[in-house]
């Protein structure tokens, strides 16, 4: 495949999996005739029909529950959250039934379900449309949580998520949908439980995911100029965390910085930090540093919004301090 835009990589993953397996179907708000708010399902209903690309009423909790019932009885639904923040309205179905039901039922049922869509802080979308639900959902047992970050990993991960026999929360980022990348012509799948080593280095381990991967990469040239070689890891799998990859890097660099877009309190980084303390305390030469979003509702004003989210210059200065043993 030639150069592919992020949202089309997602579309290709869904298209390929729907062609491969007739039990795969998509449901959500405006996924059919309208083609999805971000065109991820564009024209798929014409190809697969209205039952396989099912436009639902605006009833998040109930259409999520319906997808769970369909998954329990043999289908493989993909729910599109028009905006992942809307899934707060489906919290009960996702937590009680998608997450816990297999266990509560003693293994009677499995729930092969993907819940995907755009999340994160966009461009002045206001607080409700700028949420990072991965942090809210990480404590629910039975869910897998994946955050994609490039057209390449978006496609390979989404195909794997659709084939997985568990409920997978699949986070895309609203500001990454127009990224472009050359994708392989041949089919490929990527593992859901493996972090991606984005850049090898030796001075510090930077753990990040989703859009913050790109903020870290923007900081990289400046860090190099200062003679710092960070090792950059995209967590990809937010639950379960890939401790093999994280541990190998910490054992090498002995310093850790986490860069995340979720809020600091109860965030993904909080869990990663606790895990590093438990597993790798003796390896650390400095406290783990977290760069997170401010613990506030995302403000509308552009300047305030920028101040809410971690920026590349903060990454540069904090890494420099960490490596210079000022932290």
């Amino acid at each position, binding site marked *: 495949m030639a150069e592919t835009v992020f949202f089309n990589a997602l579309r290709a993953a869904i298209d390929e999996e729907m062609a491969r397996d007739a039990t795969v179907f998509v449901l959500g708000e405006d996924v059919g005739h309208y083609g999805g708010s971000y065109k991820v399902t564009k024209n798929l209903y014409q190809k697969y029909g209205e039952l396989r690309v099912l436009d639902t*009423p605006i009833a998040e909790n109930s259409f999520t529950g319906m997808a769970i*019932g369909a998954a329990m009885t043999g289908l493989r639904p993909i729910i599109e959250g028009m905006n992942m923040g809307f899934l707060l309205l489906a919290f009960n179905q996702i937590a009680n039934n998608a997450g816990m039901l297999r266990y509560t*039922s003693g293994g009677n049922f499995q729930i092969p379900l993907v819940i995907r869509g755009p999340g994160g802080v966009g461009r002045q979308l206001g607080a409700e449309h700028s949420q990072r639900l991965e942090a809210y959902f990480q404590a629910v047992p039975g869910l897998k949580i994946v955050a994609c970050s490039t057209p390449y990993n978006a496609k390979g991960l989404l195909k794997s998520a659709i084939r997985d026999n568990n409920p997978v929360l699949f986070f895309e980022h609203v500001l990454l949908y127009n990224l472009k990348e050359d994708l392989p012509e041949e089919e490929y799948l990527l593992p859901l439980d493996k972090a991606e080593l984005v850049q090898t280095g030796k001075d510090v381990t930077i753990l990040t995911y989703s859009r913050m991967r790109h903020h870290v990469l923007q900081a990289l040239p400046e860090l190099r100029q200062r003679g710092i070689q960070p090792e950059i890891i995209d967590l990809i799998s937010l639950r379960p965390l890939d401790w093999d990859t994280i541990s190998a890097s910490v054992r090498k660099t002995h310093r850790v910085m986490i860069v995340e877009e979720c809020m600091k309190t109860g965030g993904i980084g909080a869990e990663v930090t606790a895990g590093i303390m438990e597993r790798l305390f003796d390896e650390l030469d400095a406290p783990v540093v977290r760069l997170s979003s401010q613990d506030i509702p995302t403000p509308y004003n552009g300047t305030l919004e920028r101040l809410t989210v971690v920026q590349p210059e903060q990454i540069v200065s904090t890494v420099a301090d960490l490596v210079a043993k000022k932290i």
Partner: protein
Amino acid sequence: MLQERPLPTFSPAAVQLSREEGLALYEDMVLGRIFEDKCAEMYYRGKMFGFVHLYNGQEAVASGVIRGALRPGVDYVCSTYRDHVHALSAGVPAREVMAELFGKATGCSKGRGGSMHMFSAKHRLLGGYAFVAEGIPVAAGAAFQTKYRREVLGDTTADEVTACFFGDGACNNGQFFETLNMAALWKLPILFVVENNKWAIGMAHERATSDPHIYKKASVFNMVGVEVDGMDVLAVREVAQTAVARARAGEGPTLIEALTYRFRGHSLADPDELRSKEEKEFWLSRDPIKRLGSYLLEQDLATNQDLKTIDQKIKQVVEDAVTFAEQSPEPDPRELRRYIFAED
């Protein structure tokens, strides 16, 4: 004098009921009653824990729908926290339900679920859902799956109907309205069976809803809604059979409001002090098991001895279930984390 909502009339004269069908319904209801009485006994003896909600008084609804109109083990059944008897009617052996209540490894949910979470994929029991109304959309998903297999996958044998049971309290929840809308919109093969027992714990139905006639709420979704005497198993069976035929014909869902009553408190932890003595006595006089028994005798479909034989048999079944549950092993602590993911 207590003001009760007038019950819909039903003429048993028109009922087509064989001796075998009549006795099977009777046996299923007796099983539900004796099983639940035994649960109360075991709960007070410290053999089971947590919140245990008994079904006494409502037996005609589970038996009339599941045994009277569905094909147990083929059609899907979805229940609530008051789920023991729906599980039994769906064909889950009494041994497995009792063992689940005892928290044993042989329980239908392997001791992980408990009273409010009975599941059996084999018997197409989609489960007991403990939060009010959360099972309604899940049941619609099973019905959607049947439609999908028939229309997308071309499986002409896909003709299952899903029966979704819930209470009057659930009918004020968004999931009730949202799911009725989708089920009617897509003509899903499903029965929404409201067991209106008048009380959501201590909240009287009339105090919780603007129009207490739940069946009428179907009309705004262009859905058929019917009310039925939920203390009359033959009346329930009749409306359920009609609804099942409609669902199988692709004509969509039905909302059935069964007017019924629970003879015990909300759960075994409920002192049941709020409901009046008069109300309880009125409904106790309408016991659905006695009613069917009398009907079978009047119609010469059974003798007193037949009914006694069933009572004795079921007592044995329930005693056997208790013995099985007591003698069953506890879940293996090494399997604490099993069943979280599909691969476990």
